[in-house]
């Protein structure tokens, strides 16, 4: 939802970044305020996923210029775990499998690291168990998943639901969903989208990165941005996504090339 004068959560200015020496981000500008849902779309190789990884602090991505201010702090100075504890959450396109570590233990360690950072008492196994069972409902997950190893043997849909379960526990201020819809059938997509919608409120913000307009039928964005060649070349409302679905990206790319807005 767009709220008049709500606080700025994320402000990205002229951000440039390299991967393996080649420049992928070439001047990103984006402002996200509390309560808003933004979607970034764009062709393959446009730099969408790079942008999400730079925000989360992946060590392989080297920021070469510009700034990222998150809730008044220089985000780029923080370690990845500090960003997480400060409320930045990245739902991965390819969540990692960790055999031998139960999902429940993993979630508790993650949850408590944030509690500790906030100066709150860590939850013991018993209290945490109660909390997590309550949150399972958000993504309609079977409690049996808690005792399995993290993501091991999970289907694609189950892994993505597990990401949203983590989001439900960590209650981020800025949630970045990197192609969370890729590879999901419609039932799984609805569950994931429904989970995200339950978690969206007037104090947090959500950045959805996707290839497919289909997701935006279920997570309705306030703003849609088109990314190409390392920067945002066009922004609009949710109707822009429909137009992209109908006409493809070429007209946006051409318009940007000729300078016609």
């Amino acid at each position, binding site marked *: 939802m767009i709220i008049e004068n709500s606080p700025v959560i994320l402000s990205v200015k002229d951000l440039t970044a390299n991967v393996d020496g080649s420049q992928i981000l070439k001047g990103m500008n984006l402002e996200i305020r509390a309560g808003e849902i933004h979607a970034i779309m764009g062709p393959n190789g446009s730099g969408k996923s790079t942008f999400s990884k730079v925000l*989360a*602090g*992946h*060590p*392989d991505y080297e920021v070469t210029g510009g700034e990222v201010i998150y809730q008044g702090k220089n985000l780029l100075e923080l*370690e*990845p*775990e500090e*960003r*997480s*504890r400060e409320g930045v*959450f*990245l739902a*991965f396109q390819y*969540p*990692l499998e*960790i*055999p*031998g*570590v139960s999902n429940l233990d*993993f979630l508790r*360690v*993650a949850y408590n*690291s*944030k509690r500790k*950072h906030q100066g709150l008492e860590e939850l013991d196994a018993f209290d945490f168990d109660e909390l997590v069972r309550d949150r399972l409902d958000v993504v309609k997950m079977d409690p049996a998943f808690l005792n399995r*190893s993290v993501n091991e043997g999970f289907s694609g849909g189950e892994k993505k639901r597990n990401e949203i379960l*983590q989001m439900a526990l*960590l209650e981020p201020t800025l949630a970045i969903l990197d192609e969370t819809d890729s590879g999901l059938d419609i039932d799984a997509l609805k569950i994931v989208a429904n989970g995200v919608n339950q978690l969206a409120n007037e104090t947090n913000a959500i950045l959805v990165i996707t290839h497919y307009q289909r997701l935006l039928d279920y997570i309705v964005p306030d703003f849609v941005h088109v990314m190409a060649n390392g920067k945002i070349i066009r922004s609009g409302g949710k109707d822009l996504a429909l137009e992209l679905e109908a006409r493809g990206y070429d007209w946006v790319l051409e318009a940007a090339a000729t300078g016609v807005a």
Partner: protein
Amino acid sequence: MSMSVSSLPIRSYDPDETPATAASLSAAAQKRQEYLARLLDLAQSSQPVTRWVQELRDRAVPLVQAQAFPTTRDEEWRFTDLSALLDVPLEVFRPNRVSTAAIAPFVLPEASRSRLVFVNGVYAPELSAIANLPDGLLLGDLSDLEGDARLPHYLGKQPGSEELFTALNTVGLRDAAVLLIPRNLVVETPIHLLFVSTTGETPIFTQPRCLVVAEPSSAVTLIEDFVTIGAGTYFTNPVSEIWLEENAQVNHTRLQRDSQNAYHIGKTAVSQARDSRYTCNAVSVGAGFFRHHLTVYPNGEQTETHLNGLTMIAGEQVSDTHSAIALSRPHCTARQLHKCIIDDRAHAIFNGKVFVPKTAQLTDAGQLNRNLLLSPKARIDTKPQLEIVADNVKCTHGAAVSQLDANEVFYLQSRGIDAASAQKLLVYAFAYEILNKIPLASLRQTLSEFVTAQTH
């Protein structure tokens, strides 16, 4: 990769061959020969009890005398340099008492009444605990059981008994853990064989020995545990012989947690009759210098062999696993997964042979060695070696070497977990696949805690 099936990892002994004379040897070779002679003296200094054991010992003496102390010029010792041992002046064990309290950390609650304890290779009845075992089960020290007419048929009779360090152990054979499971008995209680080394002012030479016979259709869970009290230097040369008769089942965990200054050259020889099932979970975390020679001989059809291994080393540790599965009959299954976690300047060696001769059609064999290097100076030499002559088999093998995946660390960091904790979690996850196969919960717990504490 070489494909010769005749090259079983056994030195052949030719009685007509005379050892080189001292005069023709280099100074280094002479030092090795003198050291071996010293080891032989130390081994012979123990007093055997009965005639048949003495005869067994006597037969082993010329086997040792005919061989040379190995060097890195020997193919089987290419990456495993024993020369530092030559500077360790060894003595035989002079008994000292170990208190019950001292071994308390190693007691397994699941096996609190089925435990044999040997201190520096010598049976310690006051530390052992045997009660309420099923009728017919034989568990005790050789000196108490050597009248049993079945034992001479098995002791010292495994293939490969002529190998240098195996023969050396036999030369000094006196005490030995003996476990005989009678036909059709399924032993519910795990059997714990605890081999304690104590360290003192002088380094000692110890030779623990173990004999396990699982008669037809019997089943047992066996824990062999090599531990230390103190952090000093010693050389231990244990040998275990395990016999599985028809349709028998042995689940064997071999845990090596010796002193960081210890030399441990161990041998496990296993023979499997038809339809038998053998599992070995070999976990090695201790010793400055470690070598385990694990050989399995499936001699009948439809046997199953599972070898699971975990090596976790750091500092300057050297840890070598040489395994061989010599298949000979059709319809057998062999599976091996060996994992190494190597930190600092430690050095791991894996050489795993699987022989599939013409007589072993329809074999199903798989072998994988996975290595995790935690430091740029850590080293692994790996050689998974599948030698196939039979033409109708299903066999795979491979080795992989990796470091911690930056994407995996990042995933955990992005959930608020700091980099050091993320590393601990990922190392644990790597080890888990093997730890999870250990059948005792208490031991799984102990080792899980060790793996986590060891990662830094």
